[in-house]
């Protein structure tokens, strides 16, 4: 489907513009260490979240309008910062130590600033006029970022991990290209009792409609004339 191409294109657009300020992934990572997100190793994870397809008559046999929503999850990790040199130097005066402590920057403060900065960078890249089609060679309509949200800071030992999400929507056209079944593979069986043959079982496979004969155990397929014949 087209949304997969659009997702790949978004990843390329962000990756090309990252300039070492963040790292882009095209999927949701399952857990990672807080120290792997420090500084400019902050993560941006792009993935397809959901899609709306308004029903239309032309869509029954032709192109279908698709309004996908892509999720852009941003994750940062920080540590508190203080002038350690002043605190550990035996020759430091109390005034110098007091100044160092007063200028402490907590991990949660730094994480909040880092995520705000990352949001700003991502938003500006995706809303750049040169990316109106999200890097695609064909038009992508209604590119829009309707929402940005931030989660609660999570203390992880000496680190503070903060996450947030941006949503990116657009409008594309999906062209059904059909799927060719692979012969010889097992079908998906759905059993129910046929109306006129209460002792039979009818199943639906990805190849054809078939019945299992209770007496012989043979698979009987519809020969399209209303009769059922034994499947070879």
């Amino acid at each position, binding site marked *: 489907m087209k949304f997969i191409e659009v997702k790949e294109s978004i990843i390329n657009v962000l990756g090309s513009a990252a300039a070492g300020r963040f790292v882009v992934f095209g999927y949701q990572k399952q857990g990672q260490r807080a120290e792997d997100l420090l500084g400019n190793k902050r993560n941006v994870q792009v993935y397809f979240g959901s899609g709306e397809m308004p029903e239309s008559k032309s869509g029954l046999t032709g192109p279908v309008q698709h309004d996908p929503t892509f999720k852009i999850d941003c994750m940062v990790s920080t540590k508190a910062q203080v*002038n*350690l040199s002043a605190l*550990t130097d035996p020759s430091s005066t109390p005034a110098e130590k007091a100044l160092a*402590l007063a200028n402490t920057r907590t991990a949660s403060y730094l994480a909040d600033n880092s995520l705000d900065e990352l949001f700003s960078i991502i938003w500006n890249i995706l809303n750049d006029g040169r990316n109106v089609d999200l890097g695609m060679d064909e038009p992508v309509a209604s590119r829009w970022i309707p929402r940005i949200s931030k989660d609660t800071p999570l203390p992880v030992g000496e680190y503070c991990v903060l996450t947030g999400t941006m949503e990116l929507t657009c409008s594309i056209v999906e062209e059904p290209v059909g799927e060719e079944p692979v012969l010889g593979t097992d079908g998906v069986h759905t059993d129910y009792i046929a109306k006129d043959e209460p002792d039979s079982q009818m199943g639906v496979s990805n190849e054809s409609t078939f019945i299992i004969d209770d007496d012989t155990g043979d698979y009987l397929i519809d020969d399209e004339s209303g009769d059922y014949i034994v499947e070879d």
Partner: protein
Amino acid sequence: MGDLRAKIEQDTGKTIEGRFGLPVELIGPDGVSQIYSKNDPESLLQGKILYDTVRQNPDTGESVIIEDPVVTLRRSSLNRIPLPGEVWSVRIPAEPRPDADKETYLVSDLPVEGGRSIGFVRLYLTKPEQVPE
């Protein structure tokens, strides 16, 4: 019978500052360091240090071991008690040996636990990094 509360406070002191006590240096928001105990100015300030903390992952509920030290100090041995909102620095041995090199920590955002009735304060520490120039 004597003062039972005073006896309890003494027992707390033995627990915190006894055989398992480790030297602790406090640096208050005024930059003044405390290295020696207020109760005994010739002895180093001692505290009970746990180098790992067990926390619960809020998303999954599973217990996670965090390598953030927790320091318990006898209140009466302190020149100044840490208060909420103040920024304190604590220097403790990097390993549970009195002669180990010291590392510098900050008192974390978590509230200081203090029992005036029982006579101790508990500080949750976090390891900072050097401010970039």
